[in-house]
């Protein structure tokens, strides 16, 4: 058994803790504490003796991303959900930085945490959404969704488990391929045409958004 399954526990147990804590009461708090403790143990198993600042930051930042994503998905207030999403994006940006793709970390912050989230918040403020009725979620559909998600997760991790550590960063790979220069050269070299097409897509989306939301003025 490789260190994948403990990692799964490390990610999922805090979510269980968060969930029980939210349900309130003393039992919830207790369960949350136990979850957090077990998760910390699992983290210890995973990290083992690879104790470097970068590695530890990866696990902490990724846990932040997972937990805020959980809040986004489970929360009833869209405004809080949007704000939690900032945590998710920032956590992922941190992970990118840990992975030495600093450029992408920056792009992540500017585009997602900046532009896209602002758009979300605009809309949330604009449409004045009511709080979602708690009874309307869950039900058979929710249980089926959670079961499917957990089953898929188990299967994916099972598929990943045998890979073990084998796919560690390529031996002797220099930092060069991840630099801004490398990405830029690739974008404006071999990927020039797709890049231009992507910009065209953005233009179309821009026009589409304006046409769709601006229709009221005509009528």
């Amino acid at each position: 058994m490789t260190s994948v399954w403990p990692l799964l526990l490390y990610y999922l147990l805090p979510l269980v803790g968060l969930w029980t804590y939210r349900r309130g009461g003393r039992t919830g708090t207790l369960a949350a504490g136990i979850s957090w403790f077990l998760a910390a143990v699992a983290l210890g198993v995973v990290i083992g003796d690879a104790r470097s600042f970068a590695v530890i930051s990866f696990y902490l930042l990724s846990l932040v991303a997972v937990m805020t994503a959980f809040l986004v998905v489970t929360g009833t207030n869209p405004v809080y959900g949007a704000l939690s999403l900032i945590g998710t994006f920032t956590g992922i940006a941190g992970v990118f930085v840990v992975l030495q793709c600093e450029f992408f970390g920056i792009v992540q912050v500017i585009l997602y945490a900046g532009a896209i989230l602002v758009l979300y918040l605009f809309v949330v403020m604009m449409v004045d959404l009511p709080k979602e009725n708690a009874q309307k979620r869950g039900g058979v559909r929710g249980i089926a969704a959670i079961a499917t998600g957990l089953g898929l997760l188990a299967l994916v991790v099972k598929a990943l488990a045998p890979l073990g550590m084998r796919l560690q960063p390529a031996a002797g790979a220099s930092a060069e391929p991840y630099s801004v220069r490398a990405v830029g050269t690739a974008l404006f070299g071999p990927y020039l045409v797709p890049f231009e097409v992507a910009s065209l897509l953005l233009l179309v989306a821009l026009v589409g958004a304006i046409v769709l939301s601006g229709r009221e003025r005509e009528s």
Partner: protein
Amino acid sequence: MVPLTHVLVFGAVLFLIGLVGFLSRRNFLTLFMSVEIMLNAVNVNLIGFSRSLGDTAGQVFAVFVITVAAAEVAVGLAILILMYRSRGRVLVQDWRALRDN
């Protein structure tokens, strides 16, 4: 260094949280946010592989994913506003245009 498998497990957990959210929630805005989470999970995988294989292609594709996400959000939110204008709420059950009448 962080093993690739761990990055992939992180991506998988993120993706499936997004998926469960997409499948169980009723609010369209939350659905959009779930989709954003899923797209980000894909980006995590792409960056992880790019890092591991020493290939810039993964990052280039991540750029395209971001582009598509931006386009999707722009159009999607415009539609959401239209929905809100016509119905006063943005719940999934109101929108069943995919049904074959």
